[in-house]
């Protein structure tokens, strides 16, 4: 067993974990943040995507001990409060970018990374960026609509700001 301290969604958390414990299980079971979903456990579907030090990461292919001393952000960190959604979440709602909601948290975290790195993307570029997140429900069209809207919104806020 190893003692680790991780900053999850801005809060430090200490735990004693088995070295083989997956980050996805640590987030879901130890931290109780069940918004991160596990779809394949072989790093392909992207449902379990979280940010580790700001970079999107497959939490099913990462061990909890690997994030000791680092910063982990999950879908629960996005919305500023209970009344307001993050612009990406709001765009997904406006454009019907989700159906069953299972892949959604991973997608949101991938889009959040895009918003942090490249705010000017056409639809083809957005599709390329999201090719590591499988959605079985939507057929992607409305997700791409949502990402276009979210990026435009965030650009505008940055220009205004």
């Amino acid at each position, binding site marked *: 067993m190893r003692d680790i301290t991780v900053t999850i969604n801005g809060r430090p958390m200490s735990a004693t974990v088995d070295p083989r414990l997956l980050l996805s299980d640590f987030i*879901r079971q130890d931290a109780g943040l069940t918004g991160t979903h596990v779809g394949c456990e072989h790093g392909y579907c992207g449902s379990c995507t979280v940010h580790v030090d700001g970079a999107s990461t497959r939490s099913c292919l990462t061990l909890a001990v690997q994030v000791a001393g680092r910063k982990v952000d999950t879908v629960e960190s996005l919305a500023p409060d209970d009344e307001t959604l993050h612009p990406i979440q709001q765009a997904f709602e406006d454009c*019907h970018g989700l159906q069953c*909601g299972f892949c959604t948290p991973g997608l949101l975290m991938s889009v959040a990374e895009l918003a942090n790195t490249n705010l000017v993307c056409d639809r083809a570029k957005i599709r390329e960026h999201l090719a590591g997140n499988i959605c079985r429900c939507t057929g992607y069209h409305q997700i791409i609509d949502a990402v276009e809207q979210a990026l435009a919104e965030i650009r505008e806020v940055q220009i205004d700001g």
Partner: protein
Amino acid sequence: MVESQARRFFGSRVSRIEDDRLLRGRGRYVADIELPRELAAKFVRSYEAHASVAEIELGDAVEAEGVHAVFTGADFADSEIRCVSSYEGFQVSAQPILALDRVRFAGEALAMVIADDEYLAEDAAEMVFADLAPLPVVLDLDAALASDAEVLHDGWTDNAYVRRAVKTDGFDKAAAGAPHRLTIDLRNARHGAIPMENRACVADYDRGSNRFTLHTTTQVPHLIRAGLALAMDVPESQIRVIAPDVGGGFGVKAQLYTEEVACCLAARELGRPIKWVEDRREHFVASHHSREHRHRVTGYFDDLGRILALEADIRVDMGAYSVFPWTATMDNGMAMGILPGPYKIREYSATGTPVCTNKTPYGAYRGVARPAACFSIERLIDQIARHRGLDRAEVRRRNLLGADDYPWHSPSGLVYDSGSLAESLESVLQLGEYDVLLTEQAEARAQGRLFGIGLVAFTEQTAHTHQEFKQRGVPIVFGYETAKVRLDASGTAVVSASIHDHGQGLETTLAQIAADRLGLDLDKVRVEYGDTNQVAYGAGTFASRSAVLAGGAVTRAADDVAATLKEVAAHELEAAVEDMVIERGRLSVRGSPVVSIDISELCRLTYQRPERLPEGIEPSLESSRTYDAAPGTGAYTNAAHLSTVEIDPMTGKTAVLTYAIVEDCGPMINPMIVEGQIFGGVAQGIGTALFEEFLYDENGQPQSLTFSDYLIPTSTDVPDFAVAHLETPSPFTIGGIKGMGEGGAIAPGAVIASAIEDALSHLGETVVTDLPLTPERVLTHIDQAIAQGEGQ
């Protein structure tokens, strides 16, 4: 009789009520549920496709760290899944909960390990060794029907679950008199729904009340309750099934599974909650497969390309066991019924054989047999067009049902209610800019590029109820759905329904209906589902039925409640009941809107001031109603799809460039949700057309076990969509609503096959008959086309 009531939300693109929790990561899926004292289960599965079980050596597993129990077949031998069709001659299979003396597919569960957590359960599961003596495997459905094939179940005469035949009286004469005939053989690969959430369940048993509570990833909680009651021989009243948020279903979560029974039995045995979460590798072998059809179709037609008679032989590889509640005859029944499709075909003959093989059992997947049926009839139409030297659109025009043909009594006994087939075909040609595409194609060919156009028209049988399921021979005939509407004392409507929402947006669309009927704002309506304790009976969400049937039941129940509100309000306002108008949260007197009372006040008054109620009115604002859309063979949505593809001549890879859809599902409750359902269905259909196939080696070893071996469409495989709607109301249903959840997934196999064939047509003739059209298959078609062209 449904009274007219102003529509404020019906028809609007309102945002979904469920989105807020799902976007925040606050959805509650089965794997998120944690019960006090719960233990984890892991299954040990067969590595052979067909074998006798010599011995299961538990070895050190029983004593391993954190292990509480290891169960094998004998422990659960009193239970089994047995689903018997009412068709005469049906051969019955019984699926054990854990294998007994024989395994019949690779992945069948042999033992169940219960431990403190999943990690420890997996460790112990690896210590279990099953000594299996291989038996001859039966993998190919045609080989399974050969006279010398190994018979897979004791007491069976051969590997056909049943053999069925239908034929119209005039078929022989029409076929004999037809000037032309054409036969094609078609194959759809075995593939599946593959939702992003694997299956999971948490079973709990209360020894005080002898009651089971099963949280499970299902689309059909009431049917799971029925199946568990049969499998465990326990009264239904002792079983509560809860399906919370479910991460996609598409049919694969519409059957009872052995793991659900095993978890219930283990929970009773150990007196502790048992949780099992399937992993993706398990999902590929243990969750039901679908779609593996082989059809031989013969069209008899005249010089103008009009079909005079249609003949079909339908074989489906149903795998090792008949599944609950559909039996092993589901796909055959559906395919035999719907194969004539949207065409004016009067004479029809069909035979059908569901076949037993050493593969994973076969369940529902979005469209159930309709994708294969659409593929067959549409491929036939394309071949007829080529045979007669006619344009593909023109041959369709000549055969499609016209507006004045409705109601159409199909040669297979279905009653098509209404539709706009010709109009949808013309509209999609416009929307997809068919004329422009033809020019583009000519230019592409001049540049040596392989550019093809695919076109398909089809009808989607939806919301079929008792007549259809009676005809399909299922032991439980699915018909009605139930909805309960209750206004609470603070004026909020709680709608409880027997359907389930796992992405279809029903939490919102049913609220839209209830809000309109009760004159409430959307935020005053809460929709609940997925708990057998909420409403007594119903079937669940499958077969494009929930908006129609639950929508109808909600309408009826809400109208009952509105009628009571009107009685109470009329008494309070000293006005006549028939003058009461219900809208925008108030009841008022027609013509005197100032004389009014808030619904919330009426609710409080009804429950908390019973002395003020009019005589004969009970203090209850609640109604539970059912709805079963007569005549029970469904409401028929229709659509036309037009797509373009480009093939890389070097690799054979097909890119889908454009995709246009014109769909008519009657009045839309929420067009935004309708479009989401269509797009999602088409993307799945693109998977059917190009990628998806469960492969086996010659010993029956599954070869598709990860997302790297089994490809499903990603955001770069699917194009942007163009969509337009027509709205022909159904004369059969409340509100004229038709179902539409499956339509998107029905046509793409046929559309893309048509486009690929078209892309190669200038090189020479090749007939596309097998899906998926992987690069390898497409390269073969390119070679065939070139060889045929050069030979001429």
